[in-house]
């Protein structure tokens, strides 16, 4: 099995999000960056399990600048064999997908795995776009993945349920909760990660079709109205007459 896992760098989930330069830039001051949880907990860990059972190698790929290297090392510490970084800011989904597709083409990966979305832009686009550019089968939101021979069986989440899917490899997969369990890197993993290969590749020319012009925060809630627990009818009246939701 040759598996490519896309890894992206996102703000830690406890981050308070704020913006600078007149709300045109995400303010990175004081932000801790982590591997996107869907990439790490599900896609990467499942890829490692498949490698452990079937042999092969797991390579990670990241479109990002040098400041992404610490999260890439984290993925290596968890167990990936080597890593590739395409040296460009991942500003637009199609631009990012083009970088990954161009690297992956002709390298003979059996599986190309993504998390179902990132927790910063929540795009859920890059994996599908890479599948489109590579003209490969695509399974979205997969919560399980088993490989036998040259095909895979997956379960994918759909509205109100799920589908069991068979697909011939190579294929592109986006991973959701359930596919694997988070792994905490151990000391040996962290030490060996330093020596693993992290190849930096120049980006290709590719179109950028979207740009964020400005950011905003949700409107602050007004002060909470506290209700007397002995008077549930008051809450019902408020929900009915004031909030008009029931």
């Amino acid at each position, binding site marked *: 099995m040759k598996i490519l896992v896309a890894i992206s760098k996102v703000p830690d989930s406890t981050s308070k*999000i704020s913006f600078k330069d007149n709300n045109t830039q995400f303010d990175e001051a004081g932000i801790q960056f982590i591997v996107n949880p869907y990439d790490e907990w599900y896609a990467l860990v499942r890829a490692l399990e498949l490698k452990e059972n079937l042999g092969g190698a797991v390579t990670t790929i990241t479109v990002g600048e040098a400041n992404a290297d610490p999260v890439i090392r984290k993925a290596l510490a968890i167990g990936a064999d080597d890593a590739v970084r395409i040296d460009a800011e991942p500003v637009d989904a199609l631009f990012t997908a083009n970088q990954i597709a161009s690297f992956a083409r002709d390298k003979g990966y059996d599986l190309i795995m993504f998390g179902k979305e990132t927790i910063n832009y*929540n795009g859920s686009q890059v994996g599908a776009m890479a599948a489109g550019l590579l003209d490969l089968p695509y399974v979205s939101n997969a919560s399980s993945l088993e490989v036998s021979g040259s095909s895979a069986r997956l379960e994918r989440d759909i509205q*109100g349920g799920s589908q069991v899917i068979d697909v011939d490899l190579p294929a592109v997969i986006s991973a959701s909760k359930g596919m694997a369990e988070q792994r905490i890197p151990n000391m040996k993993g962290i030490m060996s990660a330093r020596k693993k290969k992290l190849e930096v590749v120049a980006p290709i020319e590719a179109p950028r079709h979207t740009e*964020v012009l400005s*950011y905003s925060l949700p409107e602050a809630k007004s002060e909470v109205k506290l209700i007397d*627990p002995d008077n549930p009818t008051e809450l019902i009246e408020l929900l009915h007459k004031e909030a008009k*939701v*029931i």
Partner: protein
Amino acid sequence: MNVLVFADCQDGKILKSGIEAVSYASRVVEQFGGTLVTATYGTEDSSELEKLGEVGAETLFVSKTNQGTPWSLTEYLSALVRERNIELVVLSNDFTGKAILGLLGSKLDAGAVNNAVDFPKNENGFTVKSQMFSGKAFGEVRITSSIKIIALLPNAVGTVSNPKSLSIKYFEGDFNSRIKIVEEKKLETGGTVPLPEAELVVSGGRGLKGPENWGIVEDLASTLGATTACSRPVSDLDWRPHHEHVGQTGLAIRPNLYIAIGISGAIQHLAGVNGSKTIVVVNNDPEAPFFKAADYGVVADAFEFIPKFTEALKAHKANNA
């Protein structure tokens, strides 16, 4: 601007999120001019298809044979885009929308914005407001490609009545799925609306102590006609199924009413629910952070308050029936 909108269909029923997408698209066409083309698949039932006519669909394509997989839908919609000179494709940001958004973007060389929460503007180029950072922020995103795609967050703009006379065209031709569907499984939601589409949600956290205590949550939900949800530890502990997990690493939802019971209100939980229009928090700790994000708060033991609240609701429903 010629607009193509896709309404997803499952088990022969047009999804609510699809009807909302059609309503949105018909309002975009009113604003920008052009023609609206609507596409669906998987049903020939005219009472289902009429639901789309009620909200502004006129020309409606129905693919009879489509399997509804990411690739087969992408190729179906791409064919319509070419045939009809489409400049904007509107999808719902539901499971199917998320699965095809990127494939379609790469096929059409189109810029895509998902999690859209408002109508597009044409002041600074073509821009759309999109929810980002798992609900912690929004971005105004400009799309510069000639073909554009918007995926609308369910419950973001609602549906308005705009009845039109439907002209139904059955779309011939098959598209390759590239995957084989072996089996379909239904979630056991007791017939309630699936979480992403639900307008009323009752959610339980670790404060409920164990799965055996979910009766009070379920009673309240069924009295309201609400869908149940939970915090992440609750699904991690297998007290509740994974599909109920809301928050930054679960589903992001924006119902009209979100009732949180025994949930502390951690930032990752809030990220997935703070788009809710009204939030009620029931927690026995007056310092619980969730109260800061709530519209209405009840400082109480859930095991005492929720049954009383449910009884009072039943009385209210009986009086207002």
